[in-house]
């Protein structure tokens, strides 16, 4: 009787995708509003991503802080969906799908490593 467990997993994943997407959009909207308030144009070229400045930028209500946090939410939501699926498959003892989920997370981790390793 797998159907109820499948329903629960798909519902959890769906909820995470919806919440993650709306949270991302909300953060980006705050960032865009801060751009408007500070008279910044999209063609001004925003600062590059610097995780060490993120907290200070948000505390100072600088647009780039909210925009970068929103973009991080955008990029992290799919990984969160895979992690949620992994937890569900492990609970059900579905080892093949758990392995697939782990491998996907490994590929994403490899992307991060490759991007850092090849930075100019």
């Amino acid at each position, binding site marked *: 009787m797998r159907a109820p467990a499948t329903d629960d997993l798909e519902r959890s994943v769906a909820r995470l995708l919806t919440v993650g997407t709306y949270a991302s959009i909300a953060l*980006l909207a705050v960032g865009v509003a801060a751009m408007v308030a500070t008279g910044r*144009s999209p063609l001004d070229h925003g600062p590059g991503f610097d995780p060490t400045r993120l907290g200070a930028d948000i505390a100072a209500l600088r647009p*780039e802080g909210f*925009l970068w946090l929103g973009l991080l939410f955008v990029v992290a*939501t799919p990984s969160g969906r895979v992690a949620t699926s992994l937890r569900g498959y492990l609970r059900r003892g579905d080892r093949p799908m758990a392995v697939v989920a782990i491998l*996907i997370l490994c*590929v994403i981790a490899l992307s991060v490593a490759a991007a850092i390793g090849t*930075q100019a």
Partner: protein
Amino acid sequence: MGIGLLMLAGGVAAGLFGSLLGLGGGILIVPLLTIGFGLPLREAVGVSLVCVIVTSGAAAGVYLERRVANLRLGMTLELFTAIGALVGGLVAFLLSERILAALFSFMLVYVAVSMARGRAAEPDDDGSEAAEPTAQPFGLVLDGPGYGVRNLGRGVVGSLGAGVVSALLGIGGGLIKVPVMHLLMGVPLRVATATSNLMIGVTASASAIIYLLRGGIDPFVAGPTAIGVFLGASLGSRTAHRIDLRVLRLLFVAVLAWTAFEMIRRAIGMAT
């Protein structure tokens, strides 16, 4: 802030058109940002990847709630789209803008010709065969209600290709994934479309991470564009059933043809 509003409005238009015609916004965002706002192509691709993740996220949630998307099949294939996207994301920084423009124009011509010929099947067209449960390697169970999944090997190859194309051109990759799942793997078109949408997030994020960490995404451009595309796609999904898509399709073909022409000019160095 006039430019910001224009960018947001352009994003709304790209999301709306893409959603109405079932293509996603990615195919229009890159031309919008390069031809419309003069952004470098690679930067436009990075922003487009962010936009396709946002638009696919909300839609994929709905598809899962309605049990249209096949989560197990989607995750199995997205392992390979993600590998393709990782490779494509790294290769994108090795290619010149002119080569990327040439690749993009090929893709636009292909889509325009496909739409002009009206080859795309309607969503209710179910080309799958009701099948016996299909044995897959490693004990994977991928079948859905009323259909079996076959030719997993071809699906893997197609997914790798879709991932590379997505990362190079900033699109969701449904142009490849949907035909592969539907025609080669026997998945009903509606399920293939929904499952492809589900896969976009992981696929695009695998390469968007590379663009983001290597300075290929400008937050001041990505913010207004992503919000615009999200709003446009939401509006499109609510109004699609009230609009005669035949005229819109012809208009879209004309827009794609003109965009392809502009991209070809960039590829051969006649425009910057």
